């Protein structure tokens, strides 16, 4: 079993952190994982990607991910990018941070989920430098649809990363997203 996830976000949104936390949660579950940042000009606001690779066996490949099983989009606006679904498996999953019902060109066999991570973040007061922090919420969402990593593991890894209140809030964000994710047509 090997499972590959691509995260899309914008510089400053914590995309690499999300990919790494997911990898840590996988290890916490007794699985193997990798978190792979793609290094470009990670300017604030610029589109950024990162990857997580999860397997039940030690992972020895280090090449890049071309055909992810899932795509996580931290900012709805990124759906405008032509490249956003590039390579997604025909039975792949898309998880988008969105408040709306998405009209989005995809292959019928692919499934699309949305969760309003922004409103979760705002509700919890998770705001840094004017930006809602949505990466942890998105982890809760992906945990739900991946179904190989428990939300508890995600919460645990988040709490290990940020001690105290920050940890609590962020893990709660993940939990709320986990509970509120919806599948769209």
């Amino acid at each position, binding site marked *: 079993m090997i499972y590959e996830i691509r995260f899309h976000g914008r510089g400053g949104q914590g995309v690499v952190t999300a990919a790494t936390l997911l990898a840590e949660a996988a290890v916490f579950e007794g699985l193997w994982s*990798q978190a792979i*940042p793609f*290094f470009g000009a990670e300017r604030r606001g610029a589109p950024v990607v990162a990857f997580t690779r999860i397997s039940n066996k030690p*992972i*020895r*490949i280090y*090449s890049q991910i071309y055909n992810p099983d899932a795509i996580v989009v931290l900012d709805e606006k990124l759906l405008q990018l032509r490249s956003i679904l590039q390579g997604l498996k025909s039975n792949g999953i898309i998880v988008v941070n969105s408040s709306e019902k998405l009209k989005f060109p995809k292959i019928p066999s692919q499934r699309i989920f949305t969760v309003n991570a922004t409103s979760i973040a705002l509700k919890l007061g998770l705001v840094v430098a004017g930006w809602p922090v949505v990466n942890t919420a998105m982890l809760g969402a992906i945990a739900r649809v991946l179904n190989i990593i428990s939300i508890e593991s995600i919460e645990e890894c988040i709490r290990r990363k940020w001690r105290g209140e920050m940890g609590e809030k962020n893990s709660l964000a993940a939990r709320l997203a986990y509970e509120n994710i919806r599948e769209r047509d």
Partner: protein
Amino acid sequence: MERVAVLSGNHAVAHAVKLCRPHVIAAYPITPQTQIVEKLAEFVERGELKAKYIRVESEHSAMAAIIGASAAGARVFTATSSQGLLYMHEAIWSAAGARLPIVMAVVTRAIFPPWNIWTDHSDILAQRDTGWIIAMAESNQEVFDMIIQAYRIAEDERVLLPVMIGLDAFSLSHTAAPVSLLDQDKVDKFLPPRRAFSFLLDIENPITMGNVAFPDHYMEFRYLIQKAMERAKQVIREVEEEFYEISSRKYGGLVEEYRCNDADVILVLMGAWSGDAKECADKLREEGLRVGVLRIRFIRPLPIEEIKRVSLGRKAVIVVDRDISFGGTGILFTEVSSILQQNSVTVRGFIAGLGGRDVTAKDFAQMVKQVYTDLEVGERRSRVEWYGVKEVI
């Protein structure tokens, strides 16, 4: 059991170094090595590592500073990459000539111009003449393990040479993966404090290091470096055995052999993409092609015997270089085929993946299949070609 942490290759280096209790660290930032020096600076500032951290103004000075510290008896560390490695080239020679047991991590990266920060082995391999022991890791775990072993190898009295541990830019340096850590007391037992030798800087024993040696003396010092390199082969194997005792991990000494025993074709390479090559070997074996992987862990000292032994009687040896010696050819290819002189085995070289161009198991499979096809039509000539170059740019 020790804790498993999900660490980038860079952080794996930093954690391993911390466990080795270096006295002096001097480093200069360069992408993609920065996380190493940042993490170590943090360890030191937060009091988690009792060491002096010198925030030098260049890599030339980084190496110079740890040469000084090592000559004064300290255990030392630095890390760099690409341009930084090239900028300290003169000092690199100096460290080896002075026989100082320095350990350095090198995040392998392409060379300017144009700017490119992705992996490429040309930088580390361009240092292969300098008298340093040079190794490349395949995984973050191995980076961690190699750093700790490096000190034992470097400080062994039979060796006394500096050691460079390479890790691929981004594919290892920035990719986070699970790493089994080791407890401090185990590492302390494995790696005792550095012993003082009589050739160190010491006011009670005033000696001069490195003054002029005329032609009637110089050559012997060079010879002694070469002798130490030869002895290092055995030391590397012994140290790995001992490390196995505390970690239950070993990789195979100077090289790692993966499914080579019954292989017709052997892929020879080093670094992170070796894992993809192994994946390729497994896949091709499912298709009935008996492929093995010979991963070069140490390129200096050169594993001559191992390469010879493993290559013996194969249909072909395929060397994949992530580097190029311009006007010559792939550096591994040159070394391997030199070892296989007087041998009729087909040695096929591919130059691939320069400047971080991704190479996957599929790509390796394509190389292997091409060689098989050629062999079938009786084309057995050794040669090198470039893989995956776009014709027009």
